[in-house]
């Protein structure tokens, strides 16, 4: 499938900042499931900086802006050819040992509710690492109902599981937490999802989990949509949790108040209809 992506993130600062530095993890991963036809990241007025591929296989780019900065506009546009590999991250070059993804983070602490869900899910699971991974993903999907607006960026896996509601970030954190307490390496993945004319527009900018299954490798699990990533997904990068995997990490020098708006659309290249999402954070 050929997907066309347009992703604009705008930060506004009032009063203006003395300077802004951002680290971008916004270039599609290189593996057998996707091929970049073209891709561009533009930030008006910014100086381009250090660019490299990190140990997890992600492309990292740095940009800096000297002040006064009242607005940063990050425009990502591109076309990616995708294939369905049933979630398997085949042919991806990386050097981080999978065991390093067993370590919990603040967002994925192995609290009681996490341990309980993992035990319950694995008690009924069939033999084998792959079956165990599917059982955990299914249990998380059952435990958290999709409900936007009830959780925040800082909500932890345990909090979302206790609440029983959340968005894709919460599903993903919960799956990471239950996988890691079950000794399955797991990481947070960000990317894009084309969810069709009847799909939710909110899903265009998406997150899911990857679990490491011995003998196969890293496999994606999208608990929010009860599936493994297929040709509708574009993978950008990974991390230990949402903060570590964030497509944009930035620091602004100054005392201004930040407002951010995001506009994303993911469409099959031949079709004209598109989904787009807008959100505003103050």
């Amino acid at each position, binding site marked *: 499938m050929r997907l066309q992506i347009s992703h604009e993130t705008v930060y506004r600062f009032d009063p203006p900042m003395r300077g802004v*530095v951002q680290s971008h993890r916004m270039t599609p991963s290189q593996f057998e499931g996707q091929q970049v036809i073209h891709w561009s990241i533009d930030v008006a007025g910014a100086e381009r*900086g*250090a660019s490299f591929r990190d140990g997890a296989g992600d492309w990292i780019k740095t940009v800096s802006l000297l002040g006064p900065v009242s607005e940063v506009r990050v425009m990502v546009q591109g076309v990616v050819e995708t294939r369905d590999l049933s979630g398997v991250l085949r042919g991806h070059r990386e050097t981080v040992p999978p065991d*390093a993804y*067993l370590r919990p983070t603040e967002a994925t602490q192995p609290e009681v509710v996490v341990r309980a869900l993992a035990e319950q899910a694995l008690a009924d699971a069939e033999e084998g690492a792959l079956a165990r991974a599917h059982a955990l993903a299914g249990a998380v999907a059952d435990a958290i109902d999709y409900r936007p607006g009830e959780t925040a960026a800082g909500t932890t896996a345990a909090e979302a599981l206790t609440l029983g509601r959340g968005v894709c970030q919460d599903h993903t954190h919960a799956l990471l937490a239950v996988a890691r307490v079950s000794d399955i390496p797991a990481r947070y993945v960000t990317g894009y999802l084309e969810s069709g004319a009847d799909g939710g527009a909110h899903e265009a900018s998406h997150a899911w989990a990857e679990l490491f299954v011995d003998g196969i490798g890293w496999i994606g699990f999208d608990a929010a949509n009860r599936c493994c990533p297929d040709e509708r997904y574009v993978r950008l990068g990974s991390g230990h949790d949402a903060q570590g995997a964030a497509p944009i990490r930035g620091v602004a020098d100054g005392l201004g108040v930040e407002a951010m708006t995001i506009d994303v659309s993911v469409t099959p290249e031949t079709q004209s209809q598109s989904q787009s999402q807008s959100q505003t954070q103050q």
Partner: protein
Amino acid sequence: MYEGDGVRSPYGGLLEWSRDMPAELRSLKQSEAEALFRRIGITFAVYGEGGSPDRLIPFDMFPRVFAADEWARLERGVKQRARALNAFLCDVYGRGEIVRAGRIPARLVYRNEAYETAVCGFVPPKGVYSHIVGVDLVRTAADEFFVLEDNCRTPSGVSYMLENREIMMRMFPALFQENRIAPVENYPSLLRRTLASVAPAKCEGEPRVVILTPGHFNSAYYEHSFLADMMGVELVEGADLFVEGDFCWMRTTEGPKRVDVIYRRIDDAFIDPLCFRQDSMLGVPGLMNVYRSGGVSICSAPGAGVADDKAIYTYVPEMIRFYLGEAPILKNVPTWQCAKDDDCRYVLENLAELVVKEVHGSGGYGMLIGPQADAATLALFAAKIREKPWNYIAQPTLALSTCPTFVESGVAPRHVDLRPYCLVGETIELVPGGLTRVALTEGSLVVNSSQGGGVKDTWVMAE
């Protein structure tokens, strides 16, 4: 250093020197030394005792002495360890051969809090991660040294090594004419040369080196500014540096200057809010991206801490055999890991004979010395170990060597340890000396300055 009934030969003349020193002269010299330390402003911070945390560290005028051949063996042992620790770091951020070979458990390395996935696959210049390795040693017999721990991140205390020598030379110039003592004064220039030797490939011309400090509230701030002075480099805080383009820059009155090598004295977690702790105000946003793309060198390399963890320590002799194919010259203290059931049982049964430490502890805080503890303290520690076994290791109580030390009544033996500072860059260097810490209380085995320890000048006799 006593041997049989007398002191070992390197001390010969010094005992007479101390005996011949009239009491008035001694107290005069002692107050002179204190005045010098005060004037220099050399203090250290003690936490958890209330009051002003800045104190003067007690200085003992009786030097600790090594004969040339004793030192030669020690030097080989310390350098061997520094090479093995760096080989280990290169390996675990690369192919992980030692883990694949089953010589160190994967869990201890990859699940370690100090293991930084952000630097996996990145090889720092010259393959060096730990540029200053501080190895804490104790002597238990004429020819027997044990390593208590390795410090691969930012070992402190080297300013005392230099100041102690400086003050001894000022107060007792005759001693330095009568004895052939190997110099340590070239440490700052060796350090600078070591740091410059690991400048990134993109560096043009003479590498610009800076020291990055968390600021004046840090307990080792004095040392940061002292070393910057001695090396003739800038002392900077995070806010003095910024990232633009492919490089890191320093703000100066003459405009931005490119920085090639950063000797950082701040922890990994605070280096760069875009890579590690987002709330860090001490670091430089974007620095890790510049580092990982080869625009600047950071010493010690982020992630170096995984080699000096107390649980990893147990495996250093294994590293020496694995990477260097050599037999370890310096011994490790046998260590029981409370995380292992059998070890934990042994520790709880023999608590009164053991020294217990926290896995991530330092500075002598949260430590138990079994033979010197009362029943209540032992019971308290047993409960702590049962609650969090993985947080503790235990070691036998060693018969630490003693060194003649000035006390109220004259000269008496007191327990000492030693921290030499090994420099690793293009070459491996060890200045003949180090920081000798002394437990000033009779019978005490705790030499940490935060627990009432003092310092001495350390002499290595020239051949």
